[in-house]
């Protein structure tokens, strides 16, 4: 599709114009105007003709001549009378033509010497067939009669401005002019129709509603022009006087409405000039009011209102300029079109109001103006299409650009996101590693703590055992040395005795010497001492072996494996190990049940349990400030049989300080301790619970502040 430049298009349009204009101008020049308003007479204001018959009116005395060539009676619904004095000799056979097709009710009476000789209807209230007209204008033949005085009397009534361009011409001239006008309006109608159809097809093909608005606009404006010039017959309502009377009003209203809609839509007023858009809405309503008035028969008011509303067109100029300024290029055609049209309207209105003379130029100003307007507007529409196309291309490009930009942004965002995800992932991995390390650290710390708790108990143990072993070792060793000395003393005596011989004469002396020795060496005491020392050595040996056995049981190498063991043995070994620790401040009373079955357990770990609880009990009583006799730990074990199950119950009870509920709730928590800083790890009972739960053993703590605490442990069998 080749695109025409603006200039090319303008040239084409100009040619089109030229054709139309030339035709019109030619027709105007051909139409010689010779209105004879000054020959007309009218009745003065206030003349009451209602009661008079036609002939009486004709004969009235008060007729006054007009001073205009085209009388303008203005608007008014009263009946108007006009009289034209004819020259019967020169003018008979000619035609009286009133070039106004809009008079509602018009009757022409021919009065010869005071008598009506003919009457012709010519208003649009009458149907076309009844009307006396050539072309579109009422035309009345001057009868061929012999009269002294021949008058044409016009009775007129109209709800439109009553302008009376009247002339007397030969029939040929009238016919020629009518023909001319017909051609002119045919051209006009043709132009309009062409535009209408063209734009209608454009609407159908493009679907832009502004074309439809334009079509309606053309139809109504063109129709109004045709109706105004008496061509309402083409709309086929000629035999419908009611419609005939209102045709101009309806077309006026309709053209007003379509113009408003078209302008609003075309100039995008809601976007560019909102205030004008609102104002036009008001006008739209006013047109509707005018329509209503016309429909209810208030045709004069309706006409006035339509004329008033037509002034809205003046607002189009600033509105168009504003739109243009805002960069909407089709507005310039619009401006041109409406300037021309407004110019034409101004001429039309000035003509109607009598300011400028009524002639062919002024008469045709409106159709000419509207024709030009139509053409330019169609150009404007084309420009608008281009504009829209351009805009849509721009919009598409913009969209493309935006989408590309978006894509780029998305890509960038993606990169950023990926980076972020990578960083996060790295951070998470790091955190994970750190946490793993921390966990390992914690686990090793826990191991260390458990180990240190173990070591602490081992240390405690060692100290106790060292002391416990040191005593017997001390006295056994010491006793052995003493025994040696005692033995030497005894040896002396024995040797003395051995050396005695019954045959020796000095036996008595020796005897007395030995006796002396006995006394000196205190052999009696030595004998007793030897007895005691031997007892001590025996006892020390027994105790040492007992301790070693207890220690062996206590720290069995298989301590962490589940094996069968006697729980009492475990308790006893624990007590042996603890004995020296407890000795100086606690009395232990063990009441261990007999014939308890062996328990599958981890003996070494259970020893740790008993040691922990017993030590705690002893320490609790020590800190409560009890004397040694009062500091009693009661330990008992027994077998309990219940329905379906049996267990070994170990109770460890003290008379210490007891615990509050708050403390009791926390005793098994790791690191919880009531001892001073550095004296306890707070892990003892937490380890105890771990060990007991490994044995599926239940532990119950029965405590009362100030009274004491009892641990009850139940090992299921």
């Amino acid at each position, binding site marked *: 599709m080749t695109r025409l430049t603006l200039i090319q298009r303008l040239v084409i349009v100009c040619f089109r114009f030229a054709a139309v204009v030339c035709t019109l101008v030619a027709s105007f020049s051909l139409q010689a105007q010779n209105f004879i308003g000054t020959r007309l007479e009218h009745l003065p204001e206030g003349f009451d003709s209602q009661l008079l018959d036609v002939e009486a009116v004709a004969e009235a005395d008060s007729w006054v001549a007009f001073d205009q060539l085209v009388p303008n009676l203005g608007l008014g619904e009263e009946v108007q009378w006009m009289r034209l004095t004819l020259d019967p000799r020169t003018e008979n056979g000619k035609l009286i033509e009133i070039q106004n097709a809009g008079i509602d009710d018009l009757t022409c009476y021919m009065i010869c010497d005071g008598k009506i000789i003919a009457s012709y209807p010519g208003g649009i209230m009458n149907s076309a067939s009844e009307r006396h007209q050539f072309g579109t204008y009422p035309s009345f033949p001057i009868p061929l009669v012999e009269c002294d005085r021949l008058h044409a009397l016009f009775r007129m009534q109209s709800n439109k401005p009553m302008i009376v361009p009247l002339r007397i011409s030969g029939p040929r001239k009238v016919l020629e002019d009518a023909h001319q006008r017909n051609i002119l309006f045919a051209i006009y109608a043709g132009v309009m129709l062409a535009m209408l159809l063209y734009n209608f097809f454009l609407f159908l093909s493009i679907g832009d509603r502004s074309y439809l608005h334009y079509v309606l606009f053309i139809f109504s404006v063109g129709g109004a022009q045709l109706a105004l010039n008496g061509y309402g017959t083409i709309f086929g309502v000629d035999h419908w006087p009611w419609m005939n009377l209102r045709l101009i009003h309806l077309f006026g209203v309709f053209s007003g409405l379509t113009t408003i809609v078209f302008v609003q839509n075309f100039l995008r007023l809601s976007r560019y000039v909102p205030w004008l858009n609102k104002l036009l809405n008001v006008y739209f309503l006013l047109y509707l009011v005018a329509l209503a008035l016309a429909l209810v028969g208030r045709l004069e008011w309706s006409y006035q209102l339509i004329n008033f509303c037509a002034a809205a067109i003046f607002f189009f100029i600033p509105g168009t300029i504003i739109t243009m300024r805002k960069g909407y290029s089709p507005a310039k055609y619009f401006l041109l079109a409406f300037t021309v049209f407004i110019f034409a309207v101004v001429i039309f209105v000035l003509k109607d109001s009598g300011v400028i003379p009524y002639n062919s130029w002024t008469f045709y100003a409106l159709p000419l103006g509207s024709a030009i307007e139509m053409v330019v507007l169609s150009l404007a529409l084309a420009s608008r299409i281009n504009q829209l196309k351009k805009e849509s291309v721009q919009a598409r490009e913009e969209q493309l650009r935006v989408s590309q930009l978006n894509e780029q942004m998305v890509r960038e965002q993606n990169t950023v996101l990926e980076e972020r995800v990578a960083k996060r992932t790295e951070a998470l991995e790091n955190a994970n590693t750190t946490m793993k390390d921390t966990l390992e650290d914690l686990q090793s710390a826990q191991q260390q703590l458990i180990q240190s708790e173990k070591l602490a108990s081992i240390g405690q143990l060692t100290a106790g055992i060292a002391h416990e072993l040191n005593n017997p*070792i001390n006295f056994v060793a*010491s006793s052995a040395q*003493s025994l040696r000395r005692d033995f030497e003393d005894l040896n002396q005596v024995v040797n003395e005795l051995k050396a005695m011989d019954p045959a020796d004469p000095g036996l008595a002396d020796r005897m007395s010497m030995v006796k002396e020795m006995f006394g000196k060496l205190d052999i009696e005491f030595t004998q007793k001492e030897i007895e005691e020392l031997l007892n*001590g050595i025996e006892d020390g040996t027994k105790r040492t072996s007992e301790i070693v056995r207890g220690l062996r049981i206590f720290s069995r190498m298989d301590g962490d494996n589940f094996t069968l063991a006697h729980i009492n043995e475990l308790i006893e070994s624990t007590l042996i190990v603890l004995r*020296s620790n407890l000795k100086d401040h606690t009395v232990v009373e063990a009441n261990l049940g007999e014939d308890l079955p062996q328990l599958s357990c981890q003996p070494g770990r259970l020893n740790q349990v008993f040691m922990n609880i017993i030590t705690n009990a002893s320490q609790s009583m020590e800190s409560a400030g009890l004397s040694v006799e009062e500091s009693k730990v009661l330990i008992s074990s027994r077998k309990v049989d219940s329905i379906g199950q049996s267990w070994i119950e170990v109770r460890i009870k003290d008379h210490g300080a007891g615990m509050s509920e708050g403390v009791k709730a926390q005793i098994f928590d790791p690191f919880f301790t009531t001892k001073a800083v550095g004296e306890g790890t707070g892990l003892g009972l937490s380890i105890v619970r771990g060990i007991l739960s490994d044995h599926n053993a239940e532990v119950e703590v029965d405590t009362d502040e100030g009274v004491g605490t009892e641990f009850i442990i139940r090992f299921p069998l």
Partner: protein
Amino acid sequence: MINVLYLDDELHNLTAFRAAFRRDFHVHVTTEPTEAVRILREQPIEVIISDQKMPTLSGVEFFELIMPDFPDPVRMLLTGHADIDAVIDAINKGRIYQYIAKPWNESELKAMVIEASMLFHQRKAVATEGEVLLSKMQEARAMALKIQRATDQAQALSAEQAAEINRNAQNINRLLAN
């Protein structure tokens, strides 16, 4: 012979101790602190040895207990296991002379006891010397006091005599003037 008192809750230790040292020292042994106090009262004990770990009271506590009444005997602490708190307490509160670990070495222990008894006697000698010195000082002071008094008296006397002379001189002057 050196009088030694040994307090321990372990009877066998007492037996062994006595068996080991009865030939060298005058040994007194008991398991009861009250009995120990009685012995302290009745015997001229020079050296006290006490076990640290005992059921009713510790060795340090025992030393602390007897400190006001029997400050002179030299104290030695015997223990099976060196517990740092016990050591600190023994030095600060129990004013002990020696710390002996079980099992004891007989000859070492014997040497220590002898040393302790020597210390006891030295202290006693110093104390006696101090007393002698003190009494001498008191004597000297009394003497000094006596001298002072005599001097005072003499001064008072001479002042009187001077006044007398003065008076006489004045009288003579007056007489001469008259």
